[in-house]
């Protein structure tokens, strides 16, 4: 479908004026390359990015901006529809307050500013047409661990925006459950290496709170809580890791792996967060408490899309 009459500008670009602590380009990553040592990467809260894309009529796997703890300021050129999801930053267009979770028109030359979000950690800005940086190995995602994809954005960067494909969806507002205040409940499947831990360690993981520490990034979140004691102390040969894995180094304090996690790891994984709750984990801030509840791999799969309805 051709672009609509209001979007004819030849120059569709975002001028970056400020980025906050970290803003990267993300799509749904590079699956299928793990055998080459390349992880999937992509949006830490993939469901939030999918939703932002749907709101502006992009394919769900289009590239958007992942903004960590607000602070992004961009000037849009060419007249652009945008939508913000994930952590609901207060936002303005040329000083006028606008709402997240809804498509918003950014007139030619207008400035979009994001404040710090009241809850959640990562916001997703989709721009109609998608962020159009050159893909690397089939994806525009920045993998901060492997050093693949575009560099994190900096003030002065110009971010190209693609040409819209499908029609605007005609959605005014998405009703979704936003990021959580307070304790965050995450469903885990126990294993694959639960037999490397004492029964007390497993009980602690499933009953005690674990605090998100400041040593957290797109690779993983280092947690602090009751130490998870091993029942054996031999060395585990390195093995493949999944997003959501709770890997336990000798300190006994688990790390919850997120989008840029290493492809393989040498510490045992006591349990792993199910796919449907990874987004909730990625939105937890340093200082927030996590509680892990046990599920089975099949129940986890059945609920993999909860909380992402567009009404």
């Amino acid at each position, binding site marked *: 479908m051709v672009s609509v009459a209001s979007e004819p500008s030849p120059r569709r670009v975002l001028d970056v004026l400020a980025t906050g602590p970290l803003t990267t380009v993300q799509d749904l990553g590079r*699956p*299928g*390359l*793990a*055998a*080459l*040592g*390349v992880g*999937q990467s992509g949006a830490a809260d993939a469901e939030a990015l999918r939703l932002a894309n749907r709101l502006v009529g992009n394919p769900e796997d289009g590239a958007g901006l992942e903004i960590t703890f607000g602070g992004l300021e961009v000037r849009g050129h060419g007249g652009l529809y945008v939508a913000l999801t994930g952590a609901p930053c207060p936002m303005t267009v040329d000083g006028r307050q606008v709402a997240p979770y809804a498509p918003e028109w950014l007139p030619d030359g207008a400035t979009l500013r994001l404040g710090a979000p009241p809850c959640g950690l990562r916001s997703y800005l989709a721009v109609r047409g998608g962020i159009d940086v050159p893909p*690397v*190995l089939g994806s525009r995602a920045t993998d901060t661990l*492997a050093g*693949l994809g575009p560099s994190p954005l900096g003030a002065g960067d110009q971010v190209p925006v693609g040409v819209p494909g499908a029609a605007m969806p005609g959605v005014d507002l998405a009703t979704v459950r936003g990021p959580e205040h307070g304790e965050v409940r995450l469903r*885990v*499947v*126990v*294993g*694959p*290496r639960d037999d490397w831990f004492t029964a007390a360690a497993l009980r602690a993981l499933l009953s005690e709170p674990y605090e998100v520490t400041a040593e957290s990034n797109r690779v993983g979140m280092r947690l602090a809580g009751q130490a998870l004691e091993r029942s054996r102390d031999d060395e585990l*040969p*390195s*093995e*493949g*890791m*999944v*997003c*959501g*894995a709770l890997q336990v180094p000798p300190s006994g304090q688990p790390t919850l792996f997120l989008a840029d996690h*290493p*492809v*393989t790891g040498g510490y045992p*994984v006591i349990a*792993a*967060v*199910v*796919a*449907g709750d990874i987004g909730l984990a990625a939105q937890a801030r340093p200082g927030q408490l996590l509680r892990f509840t046990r599920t089975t*791999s*099949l129940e*986890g*799969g059945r609920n*993999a*899309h909860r909380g992402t309805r567009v009404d």
Partner: protein
Amino acid sequence: MRVLPCADVGLLVELADLDEVLALYAELVDAPPRGVVDMVPAARTLLLRLDPHRTDAHEVERAVRSVSPRPGARPDAGHLEVPVTYDGEDLAEVGRLTGLGERGVVETHTSQEWTVAFCGFAPGFGYLVGTDDRLHVPRRTTPRTKVPAGAVALAGEFTGVYPRESPGGWQLIGHTTVQPWDLDRDPPALLQPGIRVRFVES
């Protein structure tokens, strides 16, 4: 074979040794079970990452248990010669640890066929296994903070080539001008699982 869950997104197949891993990987690599999006072979395990919207752990486990790998089979992704200048900082130490001496290390490294078993650590870092166990050496007790790109090294049962400058604890025996990782090449990893490698003294 033990099959262990990784949430609803993966199955970790635990095998007796690397030979069994390679045999199973060789069997599955051309026709992975439906819904499997990624495979990560490692020293004792094969991780199958799956899309929970397209399949589930039980279905993938059934598919894995239904294949019968040929014992000793290794994935075959072609052959490669890698020229090496054997001037690594740990060559003398490896000669001492193995009892082969420096020349013996070079001869043992060049006289066998190596197979890339898996990748990890960094994009394009291949773990190669040989057929002669005389070069098995431990990692350095203190890792280096900087190993140059192209360094050829040994650790445990593996040899490898550092794709870019990085920290590293492997024993360095030489260097090559071959680039293991090049984004302008398709595929960018030279040493991908199943590639057979001969190291040649240059």
